[in-house]
């Protein structure tokens, strides 16, 4: 676990964090989906590299799932959905690029401090991978918080799950059961989301969650 293999793994995991930052300030849904596809692509590369380095062929399956399902199928389908819903031109009011980026940096710093200090004894690749993974998870959470639009929140959730896959592959020898289940759960989650989006549209003529907020809580 030295030299080039370490550097490449490091670079790919780091890129994933960078792409998470890119997602953070996209205010058009199309652009957001494209960046998400890129996110999934980087994840696929990173997982494939781990498979090669750890000589764990089953990880190639995870990489393939990330590539096919997350980088291609989901973005394409979501594209179609937002076109059909007629919201592809909508611009989301996000928190604002500046504050969002600052918050994001704070979260990444937090992830680094926590993970690097705690995992002193683990091998270097695993600990840095975990630190990056936690950063991606936290950035995904931040994105879910800053988005008003259902599609935006879903993308935030999916990038969060990418961070989890990164963590799972970084943990050497973690059983395949779990990885397949992760992919599977994404699939299920996606179906659920899809159904919900259609129903939300059917009922409210918008997927802007602020419209839903009116119904929150106690009915008088």
């Amino acid at each position: 676990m030295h030299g080039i293999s370490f550097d490449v793994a490091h670079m790919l995991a780091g890129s994933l964090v960078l792409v998470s930052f890119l997602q953070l300030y996209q205010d058009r849904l199309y652009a957001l989906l494209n960046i998400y596809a890129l996110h999934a692509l980087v994840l696929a590369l990173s997982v494939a590299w781990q498979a090669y380095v750890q000589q764990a062929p089953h990880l190639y399956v995870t990489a393939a799932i990330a590539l096919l399902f997350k980088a291609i199928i989901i973005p394409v389908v979501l594209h179609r959905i937002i076109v059909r819903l007629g919201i592809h031109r909508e611009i989301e009011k996000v928190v604002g690029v500046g504050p969002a980026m600052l918050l994001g940096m704070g979260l990444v710093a937090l992830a680094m401090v926590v993970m690097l200090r705690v995992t002193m004894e683990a091998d270097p690749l695993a600990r840095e991978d975990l630190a990056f993974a936690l950063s991606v998870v936290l950035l995904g959470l931040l994105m879910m918080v800053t988005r008003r639009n259902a599609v935006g929140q879903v993308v935030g959730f999916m990038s969060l799950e990418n961070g989890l896959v990164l963590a799972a592959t970084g943990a050497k020898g973690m059983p395949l059961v779990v990885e397949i289940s992760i992919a599977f759960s994404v699939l299920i989650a996606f179906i659920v989301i899809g159904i919900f989006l259609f129903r939300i549209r059917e009922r409210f003529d918008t997927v802007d969650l602020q419209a839903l907020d009116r119904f929150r809580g106690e009915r008088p």
Partner: protein
Amino acid sequence: MTLGPIAAVLLIPVVAAVLLAALPGYRLTARINVVATLATFLVALSLFFGRPSPTPYFHVDDLNNVFIVLTTFVGFTTSVFSASYIGHELAIGRLTPTFLRFYHAMYQVLMFAMNLAFVANNIGLIWVAIELATLTTVLMVGIYRTHEALEAAWKYFILGSVGIALALFGTILIYMAGRPVIGEGADAMVWTSLVARAADFDPALLNLAFVFLLLGYGTKVGLAPLHAWLPDAHSEGPTPISAVLSGLLLNVALYALLRFKMLLAANPAALAPGPLMVTMGLISLVFAAFMLYRRRDIKRLFAYSSIEHMGIITFAFGMGGALANFAGLLHMTMHSLTKSAIFFAVGHVAQVKGTQRIADMGGLTETHPVLGWGLVLGVVAIAGLPPLGIFTSEFLVVTSTFARSPFLALILVFGLLVGFAALFQRLNTIAFGEPRGERGETHASYIPMFAHLALVLAAGIYLPPSLVGWFQNVAKALG
């Protein structure tokens, strides 16, 4: 056939789900649902008499044995209640036959997922099962497709997903902690081997993992401040689902948390999970107790009461020690029986009154005596009055806390009293006074409700020694 009963507990719901998805007709499917849950319950009972030896994926021990039996029992009684409840919903057209098929199939999938979470010996498998249970209940909560139901389902889905995502991160960290000691591969995710070697794990990693697990599964337990999904999800879905959510699913998440607490307890250098759980438990208890006052919706009222009780239970496990743990386990059992009984009553109340607004209900003991007094008895039980079972467990929690840290006990008692007063204030409006609101007919089956309440009463008066023995063994292992 070492796996016999476990396989049956898992396979019966799966087969039933497929059947129920395929078959039309309300009468037939409701009956199949009842028969399938009864069969699962009977198989689960047989676990008391002979346990299969643990495998890398499944195991049965003192802790989960009781919960499997409890879950399958409440699953069975809820299916009986559901049959009469759903019949009414069909009659008034809130549910269409297609959705009914879907509902029954999902009910069985949920049973499967909960049983899987209990028997799983692999921490990854536990996670998968809880995720499956969450997704199924999301679909069930949204089944009425009203504005409120969709919003509740969406909120539940988003918060629940974030919770289980954090829990997965914690699970991965546990694997990382176990790997250097146990070695790579599937063994480092097997709970029985993890707990046997936990003393050698890196304590820092264990601590961090537990924080994630507490936040993650804590969201599913409904601990404040992560509880936002719970009242909405309980109030907007069909009432049988509220009963199962409150009585069973919260327990499943708490059970997962307990498993990980046992890992930490086995490592002397790791942080004591107690203070974290005590804090979250007390915050949930006091917060929910105050929230009980301003509820206008009957199902939301009892949803907040569930948060309150989950707070008490988490507090008890946080205090630790044989007595408090025993009280926590007993309270989990009693709460699930009582709360599901209350939801059975509430479901019929909402049906006869045609609304869930407390302001439109009144004098229930006059208009519908059996239902009204059933609800009164349920609330008396949940408020913790003697001689019912919840009194026993709350009394144990309070006394064991007073002996060790009187200050915490004061907060606990304060929360309990606040909640107590709120519940009776509401109960007074609903059950007594001038009859208000509609006086709809009901063809309710009261057997499930009174069966639960009878069990709670019996447990308050006499606990069978075998049950006490099991709980005591587990309480010791919980540290």
